[in-house]
C-alpha cells in the first residue's frame, strides 16, 4: 500500500499548497456525482461479495439440520488441511523461483532497450510484449502441446539432436514447466512498465556519472535502478499477487498431465475444487478468504520492508 500512498501523500501535500481553495458546494456535488457510479458498482461487486462470503465462511452445512453457525471452525479446518498447505507451499516455491527470474529478465530487457544500444529496439520491445496479449488459456494450451511427448516441438528438437527428451509434464517437472509459461506471458508486460519508468529518468543525472568514468553496468546499478524503485516495487507486488492466485495454467495443464497436477496443486485450484466438485461452499469461502488475507499480509510486509530500506538509504 505504501508504494501508492507515499505518492498520494506527496500529491496531497503539494495540491493544497498550490491552490488554497475553499470547498465549493457545486464542485463537491459534481465530485460526488462523478464518483457515485463507480462507488455503487464497487460496493455491489466488490464489498458485497466479500462480506457475504465472510458471512458464509462462518457456517457449516450438515447432512442433517442444514446450515449451522460454526464460528471459525472452517478457518481452523483450513489451517490444519494438508491440501491447503501443500498448495501454499507450491505457490511459495513458485514465488521464490519464478518471480526473481521473470523480474531479472524484465529489468535486463528494459535496461538494454533504454540504453538505446540495441538496433531495432523499438520493434524488439513490441515483440517481447506480444505474449501479454495472448490469453493465458491459449498460452497454456500452446505450451502444453510444445511440452507434450506426442508431437511436442521440444521433444522433436531433442530427438533431432539424438538426445533423450525430458518429460516436461512429469510430476517432478510440472512446476518448472508452469513457471516457464508464466515467464513467457509476463516478462514483456513487466518490461514495458519498467522501460516506461526508465525513460522518465532525466538523462543528465547519469551523463554526469558517465563523464566521471562510470561504466554502463555501474550506471545501471547505482543510478538507473534506484531511480525506478517505485516501478520495481509495483511489478514485484503484482507478481506476488499473481503467483498466489495461480489457477489458469495448472487447471489447463491438468487436462494433459492429470497425474502431475492434483486437485490441490495451488490454493486457488483447491478452493475451486472444494466449491464445485465437493460442493462445500462454506469451506471454499473460508479458503478464498484466508488466501486473500495471506496475500495482503505478504504484499504489506514486502512494501514495508522496501520502504524501510528506502528511508535508511
Amino acid at each position, binding site marked *: 500500500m505504501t508504494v501508492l500512498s507515499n505518492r498520494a501523500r506527496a500529491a496531497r501535500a503539494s495540491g493544497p499548497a498550490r491552490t488554497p481553495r475553499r470547498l465549493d458546494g457545486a464542485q463537491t456535488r459534481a465530485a460526488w456525482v462523478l464518483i457515485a457510479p463507480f462507488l455503487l458498482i464497487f460496493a*455491489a*461487486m466488490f464489498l458485497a461479495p466479500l462480506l457475504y462470503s465472510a458471512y458464509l465462511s462462518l457456517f457449516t452445512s450438515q447432512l442433517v439440520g442444514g446450515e449451522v453457525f460454526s464460528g471459525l471452525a472452517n478457518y481452523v479446518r483450513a489451517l490444519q488441511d494438508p491440501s491447503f498447505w501443500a498448495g501454499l507451499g507450491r505457490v511459495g516455491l513458485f514465488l521464490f523461483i519464478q518471480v526473481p527470474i521473470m523480474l531479472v529478465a524484465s529489468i535486463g530487457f528494459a535496461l538494454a532497450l533504454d540504453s538505446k544500444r540495441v538496433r531495432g529496439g523499438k520493434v524488439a520491445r513490441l515483440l*517481447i510484449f506480444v505474449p501479454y496479449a495472448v490469453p493465458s488459456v491459449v498460452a497454456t494450451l500452446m505450451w502444453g502441446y510444445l511440452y507434450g511427448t506426442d508431437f511436442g516441438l521440444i521433444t522433436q528438437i531433442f530427438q533431432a539432436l539424438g538426445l533423450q527428451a525430458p518429460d516436461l509434464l512429469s510430476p517432478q517437472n510440472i512446476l518448472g514447466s508452469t513457471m516457464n509459461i508464466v515467464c513467457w506471458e509476463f516478462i514483456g508486460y513487466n518490461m514495458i512498465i519498467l522501460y516506461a519508468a526508465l525513460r522518465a529518468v532525466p538523462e543528465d543525472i547519469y551523463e554526469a556519472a558517465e563523464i566521471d568514468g562510470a561504466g554502463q553496468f555501474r550506471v545501471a546499478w547505482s543510478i538507473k535502478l534506484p531511480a525506478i524503485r517505485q516501478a520495481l516495487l509495483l511489478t514485484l507486488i503484482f507478481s506476488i499477487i499473481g503467483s498466489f492466485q495461480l489457477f489458469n495454467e495448472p487447471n489447463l495443464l491438468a487436462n494433459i498431465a492429470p497425474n502431475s497436477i492434483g486437485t490441490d496443486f495451488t490454493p486457488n485450484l483447491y478452493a475451486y475444487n472444494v466449491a464445485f466438485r465437493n460442493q462445500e461452499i462454506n469451506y471454499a469461502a473460508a479458503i478464498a478468504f484466508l488466501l486473500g488475507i495471506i496475500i495482503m499480509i505478504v504484499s504489506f510486509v514486502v512494501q514495508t520492508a522496501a520502504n524501510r530500506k528506502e528511508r535508511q538509504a
Partner: protein
Amino acid sequence: MSATATVRTQDAGASATRRRTGTRRRKPIERGRRRSTLLTIFVWISLIYFLVPLLWLFISTTKDNSDLFSTFGLWFGNSFQFFANIGNLFTFQGGVFWQWALNTVIYAVVSAVGATALATACGYALAKYRFRGRSAVFSLILGSIMVPLTALAIPTYLLFADMNLTDTMWAIILPSLVSPFGVYLMRVYAMDAVDDSLLEAARIDGASEYRIFGTIGIRLLGPGIVTVLLFQLVATWNNYFLPLIMLNTPSLFPVTVGLAQWQATASAGGGAQVLFSTVLTGAFVSIIPLIVAFLFLQRYWQSGIATGSVKG
C-alpha cells in the same frame, strides 16, 4: 473571455517550455551514437523465446491432424490445410465458435467501455476536486487494488448464485465493471494532464462542472482512457476463471472457456484426436484481434503506461 485567452497562452507557453526541455534532455542527436552489436545480438536472440511458440501455433493451423503428429513443428506439413481448418473451426458443433467469439467481443467491449467510463469519472473527480471524504474514498480504492481478483471470484459466484444471476451474461459483465487500478491510473493521469487553471478559466466562462468534464477533461485524458480501456479489454478478453465458474450453458461461453473445454475433450483421447487442429486454429484466431489492437494503439497506451509507472 480575456482570462481564457491568457490562460491558454500561458498553457501553450508552458507546454512549449516542456517540449524544449524535453528535447534538450533527450539529446536525439546522440541516439544512434554508440550501438552495441553484442547487446543487439543478445536481445534479438532472446526474441526467439517469445516468438517461436506463436510461430509454431501459426504453422500448426496449416496442418491436418496427422501432419501435426508426424511432421516437424516449425515447418509446413504435406498439405496446406489452413482454410480447411478455419472452415472446421467455424462449423464444428453447429458453428458454436461464432457464438463464443461474439460472446467474447460483447463481454470484453461492454466491460471495458463501462469500466473505463466509471474509472475516468471517478479518477478525474478524485484528482481535480477537493471535498470531504476524498481521502477516505481514495484509500478504499487503493486498498482494493491489493485484493486478488480470483480470491474475489468465488465470493462473487456465491453471491450471484443466491441472486440467480449465475449462468447469465450479467455474471461476467457486472464484476468486470470494477477496476480499482483503472481509477488509480486515471487519477494519476488526470493530475498530470489536466491543468487546474484551464478548469478555472472554463468556470469563469460559466461552464458547468459536468460540461467541463465532458469537453475539456475527457479530451485531455485521451491517452489515459485508451490505456485503461485496452488493459481492461485484455483482462476481460482473456478472463477464464470467472466465466468458468459462472457459466454452464455452452452458448454463453467466451472463447477461452470454450477452447479449454475442446482441449480437455481432445486430450481425453479416444478418437477425439480430430479436434487438435481445430483447437489450435481456434487459439490462433482468438489472439489476432488483441495483438492488432496493441500494435495499432501503441502510441496511446505507451504514453499512458509511462505516466502510470512514473507517478505510481
